[in-house]
Structures are given as structure tokens and as C-alpha cells.
């Protein structure tokens, strides 16, 4: 599904990713853990194609295609979804309008028929109920005045709505209370499917108790320095990053 080979990427002239190699197969859930500033969010932005994130070496192949030549919106319509660490506020644009615009833009790009207002509302309501996103929130401007946890739940609602093939979740668990964490995990687990891959970025073992990963990768200074099964997360929790990084060196 996703093949990243020897990836180097710069932001503002500074190299952040320094030879990152990672491969995620269809149907798999991988976790990425790593200290602050190690390049986790940078990786997610590079995958999504954010402007200003310049690839200086290596390759990214998604479903056999070169991902790097596609525009961010093309990637989205081809099934790349990024739940952001800091979801963005858009004043004056209601959440429902945003969801409708996005859903139909993706469908249009894929040559599918657009869904009318009633259809969108039905779809959104169904997903919103699962994420405990209220009708009132859907009428408010996108993310404006939403609490941290509400923003994160809305990201997962969007994931459920767009049904992406590759979902990258950047610290979706941070800022969530226990109940919301379970809710989000359930949402993610419900989407686990043989034709879908997920990359879960997190600092905490706790999320991985609910979303059990097939593989865990440790990212440090722009490279994967250690890989393992779900037990690696426990080891990290016990030893801390510093020790693991030392061991790897």
C-alpha cells in the first residue's frame, strides 16, 4: 500500500527527514512513536503533500504510484487522509458545509456522482452519532471554538465519512479524555479493513491498548531507528526514548 524509501525532506531549508524507510501493507495498522521534534508530523505533511515540505531524496510509492507528483487534493481524492495534530479553524464556514464540499470534491475528482444535501446530511449524521458529535456542532463554523477533544473527534468523523485507503493519524489521542479515547479507538478499529492501511502517530502506549498495531516504528532525528511488534510499545513505555535510542545506536 505504502512504500517509503530513503526519504529525505526539508522544511525552510532545514533537513528534517534524513533517510526514512517504511513500508505498510494493505490491511495493516502501524504505529509511529518518537520524541518531540523527531519528524513525525513532518512525515505526515510530506505524505499529504503540504506546500513548503520539499522532498530532497528517496521515494514514496502509494498503491504502486509515485505519490510525490500528485497535488494534495489529488492525494485526498485517491484516498490519502491525514487526521491532523492541530485541526484548523475556518470562520464562517459551517462544519456541515465543509464536509459536503470536501466529500463532493473528492467524488467529483474520482468521477463519481455528487451527493445532494439530504444525502450528505444522512451520511454525516450516521458518522456523527458514533463519534458523539452533536447536531449543534455540525452547524457551527468548522473547528471554531471547538474543544481540543471535539476537534479530534471531528477528524475521525471525517475519516469515517471519506473512507480513505491510507489514513495517517497524527497524535489523535492527545487531548482526549478516557471516554473519548475509547470512542476514537472504536472509530478507528471499525475502519480496519483488508484494503485499508493506517499509520498511527502517538506518544502513548495507552492508545495502542485499544488500537492494536501490527508493527511499531521508532522515529528519531528523521529516521526509523527501531522496529518491532506491538510489544515494542511496552518496551518504550518502560525504558523511555533515551534508552531505546542509545540501544539502537
Amino acid at each position, binding site marked *: 500500500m505504502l512504500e517509503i524509501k530513503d526519504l529525505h525532506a526539508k522544511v525552510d531549508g532545514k533537513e528534517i527527514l534524513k533517510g526514512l524507510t517504511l513500508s505498510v501493507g494493505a490491511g495493516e495498522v502501524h504505529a509511529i512513536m518518537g520524541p518531540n521534534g523527531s519528524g513525525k508530523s513532518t512525515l505526515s505533511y510530506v505524505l499529504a503533500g503540504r506546500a513548503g515540505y520539499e522532498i530532497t531524496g528517496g521515494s514514496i510509492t502509494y498503491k504502486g504510484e509515485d505519490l510525490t507528483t500528485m497535488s494534495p487534493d489529488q492525494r485526498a481524492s485517491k484516498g490519502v487522509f491525514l487526521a491532523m495534530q*492541530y485541526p*484548523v479553524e475556518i470562520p*464562517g464556514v459551517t462544519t456541515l458545509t465543509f464536509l459536503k464540499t470536501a466529500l463532493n470534491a473528492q467524488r467529483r*475528482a474520482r468521477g463519481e456522482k455528487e451527493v445532494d444535501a439530504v444525502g450528505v446530511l444522512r451520511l454525516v449524521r450516521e458518522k456523527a452519532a458514533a463519534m458523539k458529535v452533536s447536531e449543534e456542532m455540525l452547524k457551527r463554523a468548522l473547528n471554531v471554538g471547538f474543544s481540543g477533544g471535539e476537534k479530534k473527534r471531528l477528524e475521525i468523523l471525517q475519516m469515517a465519512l471519506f473512507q480513505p485507503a491510507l489514513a495517517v493519524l497524527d497524535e489523535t489521542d492527545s487531548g482526549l479524555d478516557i471516554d473519548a479515547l475509547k470512542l476514537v479507538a472504536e472509530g478507528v478499529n471499525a475502519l480496519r479493513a483488508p484494503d485499508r492501511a493506517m499509520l498511527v502517530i502517538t506518544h502513548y502506549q495507552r492508545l495502542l491498548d485499544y488500537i492494536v498495531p501490527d508493527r511499531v516504528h521508532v522515529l528519531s532525528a528523521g529516521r526509523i531507528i527501531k522496529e518491532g511488534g506491538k510489544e515494542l510499545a511496552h518496551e518504550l513505555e518502560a525504558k523511555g526514548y533515551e534508552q531505546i535510542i542509545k540501544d539502537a545506536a
Partner: protein
Amino acid sequence: MAAIETREKVAELGDKYKYGFVTDIEMERAPKGLSEDTVKYISAKKNEPGWMLEWRLGAFARWKEMREPNWARVHYPKIDYQDAYYYAAPKNTPKKQSLDEVDPKLLETYKKLGIPLHEQMALAGVAVDAVFDSVSVATTFKDKLNEAGVIFCAISEAIRDHSELVKKYLGSVVPVSDNFFATLNSAVFSDGTFVYVPKGVRCPMELSTYFRINANNTGQFERTLIIADEGAYVSYLEGCTAPKRDENQLHAAVVELIALEGAEIKYSTVQNWYPGDENGLGGIYNFVTKRGDCRGARSKISWTQVETGSAITWKYPSVILRGDDTVGEFYSIAIANHFQQADTGTKMIHLGKNTKSRIISKGISAGKAQNTYRGLVSVHPKAEKARNYTQCDSLLIGGECGAHTVPYIEARNPTARIEHEATTSKIAEDQLFYCLQRGIPQDEAVSLIVNGFCKEVLQQLPMEFAVEAQKLVSISLEGSVG
């Protein structure tokens, strides 16, 4: 309805400016240039009574003594007022025809503009007094309005048929010598709209006029006069588009609104004239004087404008809050792209007690455009407890454009409370990225964000026009983020 047709046209014409076409209809013109003879020619063409001609000639005499203002933040080559035509009318248009008698080419033009003049208008409940260049050629819904006692007609017709009302109110809000452009308009105004809503009548439908400058090199001098008598209510919509031209075309309209005791007037404009091309060539010069007078106590006047067109916009719809407890509102979206220059805002003149005004201005600049908000809030000594709230937000798209806010505040009564808030922001990269990441293409993302930014103003427009205005906002900013 109109919006859909309009959108189809965009695709069909495939040009940057979707209204860039010229209708080939025989025109009847006054000789080029401006003199007493031109004024007399226009007056004669309109079969005007003597007092009207005197009024025009008085204005012309004043205008000759006046100089063009230069304080606005707009730059343009000197206008040669002797090198323009001041009157153009489609030939062979006998007065008061039914729609079937209208030149089919003219109707074709309306179709291209997306104006559903036929049954759609009935469904939409909108009456249209369509102005084609300088003469009103088609008016609908007269009967229904007649029943309510509402007068809605061409001003040239009102001058003949309702001369007492016109005499009483014309020039009573914008005096003949108010400013250079208003005085010019007073001398040579070609046609326009007249509305009178009698005491206690709520106008049964939205009134609407589409303007269209068509004749090559013809200055357009619209004159609008709207009177809401005691306790009356009227909502009026003005929308306009002009064909593409390389020479600059001068437009100097005057709009006067009078609200008597307890009356309310809502005036909405969607202005989409040719803005010039990407290199700043051509486009309409739009020098407009719009003013409302809350003459009676508890009256209310509300201006809503969506300004996306014209090379130069010089426009300050204002309200004189003369009566006690009167309310003035100004909601504005001004978009300037490429080389457009907009200097627009409002004046709220508080004369009466407990008068309230509210100003919401949203300026959007893109390309190399300059967008200035210029506003005056003036509280006179007798205006006890006057209140004003002003909010001016500017949005910049790209690094080469400018936004300027010039608020003037004169408070000559210590009980006045004036609040002013101003923000300037850029379309944030993270907002754009968020939209793109969710599959929304660049242009659509810009349009979504900008429409969100303008929401408070768009909400003020009647439903059908809000949809069209949203589309206009999108179209006028296409390709602005590269």
C-alpha cells in the same frame, strides 16, 4: 434560477469575464461632448417638463465651476468629459411595450446575463425594471404593485406622471451641488428608477433592477429615487453587469433614499461591472453617490453591497440619521483583484437622539489590487446617546495587494458610544492546506474561505441573490492563489 443560468454562461463564454459581449442593437445617441445643448437634448428626448430642464441646467452651471475630487486612494488617467456620449438609447423603442414587443436581441442579452425575465420572475416573486443603457424598456409586475399602491417605474416616467413627488424629493438627500460626480449626474442623468411606497404599505415583493452599460463610450448616469412613506417597507435590489471594452467607461450614479416616520428601506447591490483585464486595461470607472435619509423618527435604512467589479470604485453609501431613534446599517463586501482599485465605505451622520448605526465591512484584496475602507461616523451635538458599532475586516490574498482602513470619527456629544474594530488577515496557509487535504481544490478552497469571511454580509442579502453573490465572489477570485 439566475445563478444557475449565469454559471452556465461562464462555461459557455469561457472568457475570464463572463459578461464580455456587446449586443448589436441600433443606438440613438446625443452628439459627443457636454454642453448646455447636450443637457437640452437629453431633456427633450425624455419629453421632460420645463422645471426639470431648469433643474438640469442649474446643475450643469454649477458643475462647470467644480473640480474633480482627488482625495480617494484611486489613480486613473484624466477623464476627458468632452470625449464621451451622454445619451444613448436603443432606437425604435416605443414607450411602454409589453415583453413580446421587446427587441429579441435585447431579450437575448438578458438571457446571457442570466436574468430570468419571464415566468421565472413570477415564481421568484421579483419585479424587474430592466434598464438597458439609458431607457427603461421592460417593466413587469406593474399590476400587482399598483394594487398595493406602490409606484415602481422609470424615473423619466415619474418625472412626467408623478411630478409632485419627484419635485418634492429629488435632490433633497443628495443636493445638486453635493459633489462633482453627483452634480454631473444631476445635469445629464439619463434614466433610472423611481419607487414610492405609500403610508403603511409593506411592498409585496422585492423590487429589482438590472443595469447594463451597453453603448460604446457612453457614460452612464443613473438616477434612483426611493421614498418609503410613514410606516412603509421596501426592499430593493440592484444588480449590474457590463460588456467588455477597452476604453474606460464612466459611471456616475446617484441614489437617494427617503424613509419617513417608522419606515424601512433595505437597499442591496450586487455590482459586477467589467473590472479591466489582468493587466489593468479597460474597466468601468464607478463614481457613485448613494445616500439615505432617515427623515422620520424610528425609521431605518440598510445598505448591503457586494462590489466585485469595476476598475475603480468610489462609493460611500451613507445614512443621515435625522429622526430620533433611527437606525442606519451598512454591510459591505468589496473585492479587488488584479489592478482594481476600490475606495469605499460609508458615512453615518447622527443628528437625532438615540440613533444607532452599524457598519460591517469586509474587504478582500488579491493580485496587485488596492482596497480602501473609508468611513465616517459623525455624532452631532444634539444626538444624545448615539451608538455606532464598526467592524472592518480585511483579507489579503498574495503579497502584492494592499488593504487600507481610514476611519474618521467625530463625536460632538459626550454621551455618544462609538466602537471600532478592525482586523487584517491573510488566507492562512494552514487553512488552505486543511481544505486541500480534504480533497477541495485550490480555487474552491479560496472561495470557501472567502465566503466564510464574508458570511455576515452575505446573510443580509435576500436568498436568491446571496447564492449569486457567493458565485461572484468565487469567480472574481479565481486563480488568485498561485
